[in-house]
Structures are given as structure tokens and as C-alpha cells.
């Protein structure tokens, strides 16, 4: 082959490139020029036959020809692959069976996810999210909530009390100031109401503690979300409406609910709220104990005595409050059958949510 041939090849190249209309044709083109016995290989094999003077010039020409070919292939490839070619299985743009590459994300704990979901519903309704301390006074946890002095829930069987610290604290931490681990987020009601004036619409998520032996459905630490609305003219019907919005947002539009009269010292009237079983839809199954209903929260109208304790005028203000057990809701929502799984933190468990 001579120099002339190289120029011929270069000319032919352009013509042939125009004719490439598929990835298969492009592959043939590539093989023809760049293949093991392709034109470039043939040209290169000529180099040793040339004189010392001819070699660099020829070599350079072959090289630029090769670059031109590579350029054509790259260009054609971009054009053709962007058109797509569904006719050929071998030529899928990507083997989609391969895993994608990305910075792996962690996850929020299912309890946090549930709290976030619940709070965000109330935030959209105009509530603020507030917090209260986990170590509370006996007043905020009990007395302020109209829970009588001799009420069983004040017993050491039902509430964790802090050991008295030495010195002055000993004298201080008696009676109403005695420190305990809050046994419900309702304790934050008293604190918030003392700090602020109505109107008040808040949700308070957080940890609560009760000395229960741990088993599949009991834990000595769990989570609640407390809700509280206080203003002039707040009625039981407002409680019903707010919780209906909440229930339908979390469990779906079709979920039915019922308000069952109940008793809590800090609300009057009080109601427990049941939703139609999310597993069987109300027909009865093992999850709802064949009742068709699942109890999900306690609620009621704030007791006038609670208002008196925090210095609100019960003649002027009314309000409603509710408390949700987060673990219970998460267990129902995700079908989890053992509360201990939440605190074992097995990554294989946590990664499911």
C-alpha cells in the first residue's frame, strides 16, 4: 500500500460514514477499520517495510486516520444510541440488571417516621410542634392534670421516680416538686399552658416511661404525641373533626372512626377513639380481636380543673386534648408484632421502613 491508498481510504471513509444507520452497521464499520485485521492494522503493518525517512510521515498519517475513524465512531455512537434501537437485545443502552451507583442513604427510625407523619398533618392544620422535658415534676405529670393524690397511677408501680439528690434538693423535691419520668406527654400540657396564653394549638411528641415488664406488647419506654387546643369556643365537635382529618390522612379516606365514652381525669367528656380495623376493614380478624375496631387514642375536652391549675379561666376558655401511642400506630401501620423490635435496632429491621 502506498500514500495514495491512505488518501483513498480517507475519502472512502467519509462516504461510508454517511451510510451508517444502525449500531450494527457501526460495529461492522469499526471492525472493518479498527478490527484485528482491519484497515488500520494493515496500514500499520506496512511501517516496517518503509524507509527511515518515510516512516514518521506515514505513521503520522495513519495515526490521524485512526483518530478520524475514532471520532466518527464516537459521533455516530452518540447519534445512534440517542435514537435508541429496541430491535436488538444485545444493544440495550444499559444492562438494567446491574445495580445503580449512588451515595447510600440511611433511614429515619420507623418511630421517627411515624411521629413526623403525624406531626406534619397537625402542622398543616395550624398546630405548632412543641417539646417538654422527660424528667417532670409530680405537679405537671399528675396534680395539674386533675389526677387525685391517691390515684393508683402515682404509685411506684406505674411511674418511675428519681432518687432524691443530696442536700437542698432533698427538701425541695418533695410533694409537687418531686421529680419523675413523665408517664405521659400530657405533662407537657400543664407546662405549656403555664408558659403561654390562649389561643393554643400544639402537638408534643416525645418519650414517656412506665415501669412495665418488657414483653411483645409492653415497653418501659415508649413514645406519645400529645395534642392540645385551647381557645374561646372550642367544642367536642372540633375534637371530632380534627381527629377525623388526622385518621383519614394516616389510615386512608375510607377509614371509619368512632368515639367511645371513656374516663381520663384530665378531660371531661373523655373518649377513646377506635378506627375500623385496617387489616380486615371491620369484618373482624385476629389483629382487631374479631371486633372490627382498633383503639388508637384517648381524647377529650380539657377538664376545667386543669384550666384552674394553670390559671386559665374555665368560664372563658374551653379546649380539647388527645394522646396517641406512637408504637401502637407504627405497629398497626407496618404490621409489626413485637414492640421490642423498635429498641433492638437491628439494621435489617430498620432498613425495611
Amino acid at each position, binding site marked *: 500500500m502506498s500514500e495514495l491508498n491512505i488518501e483513498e481510504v480517507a475519502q472512502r471513509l467519509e462516504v461510508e460514514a454517511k451510510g451508517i444507520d444502525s449500531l450494527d452497521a457501526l460495529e461492522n464499520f469499526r471492525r472493518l477499520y479498527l478490527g484485528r485485521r482491519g484497515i488500520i492494522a494493515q496500514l500499520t503493518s506496512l511501517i516496517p517495510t518503509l524507509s527511515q525517512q518515510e516512516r514518521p510521515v506515514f505513521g503520522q498519517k495513519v495515526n490521524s486516520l485512526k483518530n478520524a475513524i475514532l471520532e466518527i465512531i464516537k459521533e455516530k455512537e452518540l447519534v445512534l444510541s440517542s435514537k435508541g434501537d429496541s430491535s436488538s437485545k444485545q444493544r440495550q443502552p444499559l444492562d438494567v440488571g446491574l445495580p445503580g*451507583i449512588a*451515595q447510600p*442513604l*440511611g433511614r*429515619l*427510625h420507623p418511630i*421517627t417516621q411515624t411521629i413526623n407523619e403525624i406531626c406534619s398533618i397537625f402542622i398543616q392544620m395550624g398546630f405548632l*410542634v*412543641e*417539646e417538654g*422535658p*422527660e*424528667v417532670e415534676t409530680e405537679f405537671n405529670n399528675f396534680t395539674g392534670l386533675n389526677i387525685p393524690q391517691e390515684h*393508683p397511677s402515682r*404509685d*411506684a408501680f406505674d411511674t*418511675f*421516680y*428519681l*432518687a432524691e*439528690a443530696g442536700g*437542698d*434538693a432533698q427538701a425541695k423535691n418533695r410533694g409537687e416538686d418531686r*421529680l419523675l419520668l413523665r408517664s405521659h406527654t400530657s405533662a407537657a400540657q400543664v407546662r405549656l399552658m403555664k408558659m403561654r396564653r390562649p389561643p393554643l*394549638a400544639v402537638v408534643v411528641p416525645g*418519650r414517656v*416511661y412506665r*415501669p412495665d415488664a418488657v414483653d411483645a406488647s409492653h415497653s*418501659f419506654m415508649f413514645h406519645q404525641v400529645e395534642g392540645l387546643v385551647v*381557645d374561646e369556643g372550642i*367544642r*367536642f*365537635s*372540633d375534637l*371530632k*373533626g380534627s381527629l377525623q382529618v388526622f385518621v383519614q390522612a394516616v389510615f386512608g379516606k375510607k377509614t371509619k372512626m*368512632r*368515639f*367511645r*365514652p*371513656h*374516663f381520663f*381525669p384530665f378531660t*371531661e*367528656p*373523655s*373518649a377513646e377513639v377506635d378506627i375500623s380495623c385496617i387489616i380486615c376493614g371491620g369484618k373482624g380478624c385476629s389483629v382487631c*380481636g374479631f371486633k372490627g375496631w382498633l383503639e388508637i387514642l384517648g381524647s377529650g*375536652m380539657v*377538664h*376545667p380543673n386543669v384550666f384552674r391549675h394553670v390559671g386559665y379561666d374555665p368560664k372563658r376558655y*374551653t379546649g*380539647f386534648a388527645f394522646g396517641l401511642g406512637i408504637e401502637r400506630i407504627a405497629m398497626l401501620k407496618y404490621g409489626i408484632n413485637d414492640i421490642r423490635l*423498635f*429498641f433492638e*435496632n*437491628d*439494621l435489617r429491621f*430498620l*432498613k425495611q421502613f
Partner: protein
Amino acid sequence: MKVTYNWLKDFVEISLSPEDLADRLTMAGLEVTGIEKKTDDYVFDIEITSNRPDWLSVLGVAREVAVVTGKRLKNLRLPVASKKDLGKKILAIKIEDKKDCPWYTARIFKEIKVGPSPSWLRSRLELVGCRSVNNIVDITNYCLFEFGEPLHAFDWDTLGGGYIWVRRARPEEKITLIDGTQRQLNNEILVIADKTKPVAIAGIMGGKDTEVSSQTKTILLEAAIFNPVVTRKARRYLGISTESSYRFERGIDPNAVGLATSRATQLLQELAGARLTYIGSTTKPKTKKVIINLGLDFVTRISGVKVDRATVKGVLKGLGFIVKEKQDKKECLVVERPSYRQDVTSAVDLVEEVTRIYGFEKIPTTLPAVKPQQVTKNKLVFISELKNLLVGLGLQEVITYSLISPDILNGIFDSKEGLASINNFLNKEQKVLRPTLLPSLLDCVSHNIKQKNECIAIFEVAKTFQQKLDVLKEKWCLGIALCGTDARLTTQGLLKEEFGWLHLKGILEAIFERIGLLNVNWEMNPVGNGFQIKVKEEVIANILKPAVETLNNFDIKNKEAFLAEVDLDKVFSLPKKEKRFVPLPKYPAIVRDISFVVNEGILIKDIIDRLRQEAGGLLEDIKVLDFYRGRQIPEGFISITLSFIFRSSERTLNEEEINPLQARVCQVLEQSFQARLR
């Protein structure tokens, strides 16, 4: 509590099916949790709320049935004991403290024939879960279930000296109970004693020595009221819960005492041939007359529904309240509560009674007019954003217990001072409120290693607790733990890397940068196993790698773990960087990368600080492009590539003016840091 359909029918006419009745009761607040069909009856399992002791009886439930079905209670027709048959006084009743026992009544019956109960009595008791013993005991239990007043029958002949003394037990006293157990008593426990010894634990269980046996000829039938708190304390101390204690703990209607005694008298006469010979009693306690004004508008104000006067009156009367209208104001009712409704103390209690019977389901749903409120910078919002950031960095959130055993603090938090501890912990694992999240995270790491999880990168945001003098400090902390291997797929193949300091640093830098924390400094901690992160002089975080022995305590073997704990209260309150726009550069930069090898002891921060001073005013930034130890680099040395960015804000730089700057940098590297340029 169990109650049967037919037993209810003794008191009220029922036309509803058991299922429909159960529904109605549930929606009135007596939650029926189960209905069991038995041969010719239905057993209802009812959950009774703690404020309604009056529901702990067939009569109480029947009252509710009557109201929800619009029926009236049947007449009880209980016989009145005729005084003329009674003998002379043979019994003295002494009460040590009227607070412990507000009322004590006793009846003495002679000519008792102890034997088995008739089948109707046996089967009723068995349906509600009570074992039949003999006709006498069965009658006392029957009356307990029917009227909610627990009765007890003593064998009169075994009681010493015609004497009943209700008093606190003496410290050294013991009693053998009907269940056969011997109990040590103390001053907290109220007992019924005869002249010499305790014969029963008041309101809980009778003694073995005085129980009714087949030989019994004469009985003393006790019907009393005992203090709820005293009963509860004794029940808890002794660990015996009985149908009797359950009722005394919740409070007894004084009128039930008379009803139960009369019914028992009637049954004892009919079924055991008994002859009533003596009635003894302390003074019946006065029930306070409680009158409440209820405005009909108040019902509407609380419930959101207008209930008409006739309905309100009907419901309250049906529930046993005496209702009158105010003469001048018809919209205001004057309501007197019955003796069995001591839970009702104010108008709002009446609103509950009216609405629950009227039906919560009939109250409309409305939405409250929530007004905008004052908003302050919210820590929970800050925490929530932080959590999302950490999740984005690949960490998994965990939630661990706030209560721990102090033992697991060893090697991590060695100051045992200021631990806040729990008085009534159930086990050692709940003894203290944790002052740090880190041991709990190590527990979590350990658990996951056992589950063969290779890559453990976790965090928790929770409170920590410390007692500072007489103040208990509760603060939000972020804990992070890294342990194991991070394996990432790349186009170059799987990249496996053991977690180390730099991974932890990277996470912390990312969050501090995002939060906008300024002047963050890392200093080695006093122990030398990690660092303290300071902002000005405030320590905001601790970073450490626990010692091997510490990790072994958590059963973590042959692994390294890297821990960080950040004080979020401080981070939240520290001033943050204000976002300010900086004009984008008009002229291109010239970038020079310089690679060199230096002794590992030389700190990269020192090198960069020095070079910043040396590289002249055109230097915009120095970045660490690469660092490497290992193959091709002699031991004890590290290869570093720094990227120098030069830029002028006034013109385009040319290569020639940068060359001397680069030369100067190389010179400083070689001379001051003994670097070998590559």
C-alpha cells in the same frame, strides 16, 4: 368484669339481642370486650373505667341498660328485716379509725345449714368466673356481684368473745388466710380482729380459722366499707387481688351495703334455713348532698351540639339524678346526684353524662378555628433537619433506652458523679438516666455485629441527663457510631473500606458546615483517645475511639469503633454563619497541583497555614486533592497533593506570573517541611 344477659334481665326488661346490647353499652362507655354464648345465657366481658365503681355490679350495669334502651328498672322487692325476732346485744363493734372503715355492719344468723348451693346459684357464679364453695359463701359472692358490695361470713363460734375490732395490724401479727397462705402483717394493713387476733384482712380476704365450714351453725355476716387507699396498699403489699379488694379500692356506694345485706338475708333464709338474730352497725356515714346547676347552653358550649331540655332531663333522670328546673330560668337545671355517683362533682361531668347517652356519634364534626400563634426558633425543627442531613449522609437512625445500667459507662463516662438515678427501677438495666448516648450506641453496634451486619453507621438524637447540684440538667445530644466496613460499588469495582476517624470527621464537617457553625476547632482530648470539638472555648462535641477493653465489655471483638457525641443544645444556641452573596469571579483561575512526600508527623494544617502566608496575594485557596500512605511511599511518610488556586479579581493571570509563586511554595515545602517533591 363479667355479667350475664339473663342476670341483667332480673333487673330490667331487655328486648335487644345480646350483640346489639353490647354495642349500645360500648358506645355509652361500658366497653364490652367479649360476648360468650353459654348453654342458656350470654356472658359479657365489660371493661369498667376507674371512675365508675357503681358499674361493678349487675344492678349498676342494669341501670345503664335501662337508660340506653329507654326502659325502667324493675322493682327490687327486698324484704325488710323485722326487728321483733332479734335477740339481745351479743356483739360489740369497735373501729380504731373511722377513716379506715367508715361503716361496719354485721348480722348474726343462727340455725345455719351449710351445704351445696342450688344449681341456678352455682351456674350463675360459674358464668361470671366464681367457683362455688358452699351455699353460705356462694350467697355472699352472689350479693357481691349483684350489688357491688363485698360481704364476708365468719363462723361465729370461732370468733372470740362477741367482739369485732377493725384496726391496723400489729407489727408482729400473722394470719393464715382462706387460700391457705400464712401472711406476716404490718401497721399498713387493716384487719378485722376479734378480742385477741386478726381474723380477716379487711376488704381482701378472710382468715382460715374463722371461715364457714360444714360444721358451722351460726355466722356473722359482715357488710362494711373500707378505705380504698388502705385496701389498695394492702393488696399490693400482700399481692392478693380479689373481687372484694377490686371493689373496695374503687369505692362503695353506702346504699349498696343495705341492698346486699337484705338480699343475703333473704337468700340465707331461703337456701340455708337461717334465722336472723342480731343486727349490729356503726353509724351510717352521711352522704353529702351534691347539687349542681347545669345550663343547657353549657351543654352546647362543650359539645358543639344543641340537646333539647327534655332529652337532657330524661337522660339525667334515667341515670338516677334528681332534676329540677330553676323557677326563673327554665334553661337552667338543678341536678342532685344519687349516692352511687360520687364521681359527678361539676356541671361538666353532667355534660359528659348527657352527651354519652345522647350519643357521641350524633355530635357533628367541625374544625376548630385555629388562630396563628407566636412562633419562636424551634429546636425540634432544627433536630428534624439535622436528622434528615444525617440520613442523607448514609447513617441509620436508632432509638435506644434512656435508662441504663451504670456499669456500661465504664471506659466511656468515668465520672460517676452527677448521675441521675431511678428510685424504683425494675432491674439494674434501668438504674440511671444516661449522661451520654454512647454506651447505648455501642450496645447497638454489638447487637448488629452479632446479626452479621458488616456496615454499621448509626446515630441517635435523644436527651442526656445529669444532676448538677440540685438541678437536673436535661439536654439534647446527637450520638454517632461507626464500626465495620463501608462497601461501595463504583464503576472501577467494589470499594471496601474500614470505617475510621476520617469518616467520622467527614460526617461532622458536613453537618457543621450545613448548620453554619463558625470557628470549629478540633483539639485532642485530655485522655488522648480522641478529640474535643470546640467553638471558641465551648466544648460542643466529643470524638473518641474506645479502648479495646471497653469494646470487649460490649462483646465487640477485633473491631474498632468510632464515636461522636454532639451537644445539640449548645450547637442550637451558638451563632450561625449568615448567608451573604459573594460576586462570582470575573476572571479565570490558574490551578497548580503540587505533589510531595513528607514525614507523617508533620501536620497538614501547619503546612497549609504556612503556605497560605507564603504564596502571595493572588492565592485564592489551597485544597487537599489527595493523600496517600502505603505502597510506593516509604514507611512513616505520607504523599500529599495540594491544589493551589490563583486568581485576580482585576485581570486574567498569565502562567509566567504564577511560576515564581509555585517555585516559592516548593521551596518552602522542601526547606521548612523537608518535603520531597514528586
